[in-house]
């Protein structure tokens, strides 16, 4: 063995060992806990009214968040790429801010301005719309922490979008409408899907921002992550495990679906078997 092979083996063992200890070991602990209890207990935990309501609320709020960002995030990406206007650089730099701001601080900011004594909150309350400690607050918190995903996933795709491809469609007789649906949309779709799915997964797991703004009233404004936290605090690891497993499964599944949908055309093998990353490398998922 040359010294180089020794070094390579040492590095490889370090990397594999680190990943196994840091990521796989904790995951296996959760899996073990679930297996020990068995499927009967799992179903019982998850269908318990408070847990079930938390899961439904989380999924619903995450879907609403995703839809809002899909519309307004796409719009923002297009405007930021195609138009020149005063303050453009400022907005562009601001996009990443939710990744740099602690989620708890994000929650405080929303609570301050949209709370009943806050500037916007008081105004909205007079019009009969309460945000804080209500469902809109949860969506607002999720919107804040996931803001960059759609915009940052779409921007590079929109910039790369070749005018030439659209022109080629024109010369082949395609109308602008046909060109938009058959050429522009398919080229942008992988970026949009990446943004949408990452938004959804991130929103599902959000805790810090929501715990501040939601009020955490069981059956009403308690999301799954807050429910899990409550179960841990009240020494019920079993209940926490079952709900965690559901959230994790949905998250993993979303990422696998995303992987399948955005696989380059003609590639049969999923990226995780080709050595690629599950998530598109152009999207940087940043701090919460």
């Amino acid at each position, binding site marked *: 063995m040359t010294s180089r092979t020794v070094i390579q083996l040492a590095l490889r063992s370090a990397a594999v060992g680190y990943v196994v200890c840091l990521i796989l070991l904790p995951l296996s602990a959760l899996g073990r806990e679930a297996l020990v209890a068995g499927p009967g207990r799992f179903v019982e935990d998850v269908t318990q009214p408070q847990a079930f309501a938390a899961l439904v609320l989380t999924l619903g709020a995450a879907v609403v968040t995703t839809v809002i960002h899909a519309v307004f995030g796409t719009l923002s990406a297009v405007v930021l790429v195609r138009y020149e206007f005063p303050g453009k650089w400022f907005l562009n730099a601001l996009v990443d801010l939710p990744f740099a701001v602690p989620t708890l601080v994000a929650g405080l900011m929303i609570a301050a301005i949209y709370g009943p004594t806050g500037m916007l909150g008081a105004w909205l309350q007079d019009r009969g719309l309460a945000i804080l400690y209500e469902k809109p607050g949860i969506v607002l918190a999720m919107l804040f922490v996931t803001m960059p995903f759609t915009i940052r996933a779409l921007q590079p795709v929109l910039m790369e979008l*070749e005018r*030439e*491809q659209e*022109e*080629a*469609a*024109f*010369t*082949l*007789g*395609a*109308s602008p409408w*046909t060109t938009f649906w*058959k*050429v522009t949309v*398919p*080229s942008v779709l992988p970026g949009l899907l990446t943004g949408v799915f990452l938004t959804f997964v991130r929103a599902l797991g959000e805790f810090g921002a929501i715990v501040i703004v939601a009020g955490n009233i069981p059956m009403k404004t308690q999301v799954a992550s807050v429910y899990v936290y409550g179960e841990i605090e009240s020494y019920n690891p079993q209940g926490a495990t079952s709900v965690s497993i559901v959230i994790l499964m949905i998250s993993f599944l979303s990422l696998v679906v995303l992987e399948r949908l955005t696989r*380059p*055309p*003609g590639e049969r093998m999923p990226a995780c078997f080709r050595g690629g990353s599950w998530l598109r490398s152009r999207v940087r998922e940043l701090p919460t």
Partner: protein
Amino acid sequence: MKIEVRGLSKRFGSVQAVSDVSFAVREGELLGLLGPSGSGKTTVLRLIAGLETPTSGEIFIDGRRVNDLSVQQRNIGFVFQHYALFKHLTVFDNVAFGLKIKKWRRSDAGARVAELLRLMGLEGLGHRYPHQLSGGQRQRVAIARALAPRPSVLLLDEPFGAVDAKVRQELREWLIRLHDELNVTSLYVTHDQEEAMEVSDRIIVFAKGRLEQVGSPAEVYEEPVSEFVARFIGSMNILEGEVKDGLVRVGSLEFPAPGFQDGQRLLVGFRPY
């Protein structure tokens, strides 16, 4: 005349890209638009295709004035410099794109695509995606796609610009062969004078948005109309001399200079043979 252009001009803001250009392309001809980069040749091609609107001037295809027709209505085939293949479609679907738009019957379209793939040496690659092809293959797909709906003229913008030298030579031979076989009137843009000389039936030389000279490769080479054309095509040494007694003197050499006045200064060009 297959294509005719009269007094064509195009301004982009303060830049005069094309000024007062007129020429005609004959049926079945393979014509090269030659000029340095920024000379307006690509703009002329895009104006003919309808991808740009002329500031002034008229364009005729098949004797019909097409100024007011959109790109879609002009029935031209366009090959882009960087291929502009649809990345989300297979080779087959790329070539079939125009046929689907024109609502060809499925069986006819399939036969047409197969025929073109065979003609372009792309058999067996129909199910592949653009990113799985080499540069030369991509360009041939682009040509096949442009030819599929039977355009009345084929316009090519620097078709071999993005591939390496060896592949370029191969593609040139393809283009000549293709042109001989299909006999479709073709107009192509290049900045490579050697390529233009080898491939074209006739050459149009552009400089700074103006048409300098039109002629067969031999004409343009043997009888350049201006110093620019002389310098741009082939290699030439140019020296200055003064006319005296109907002769121009360059150093110790004398050449006949009929029709020039004594004392006039002339440029004399020499080509290696």
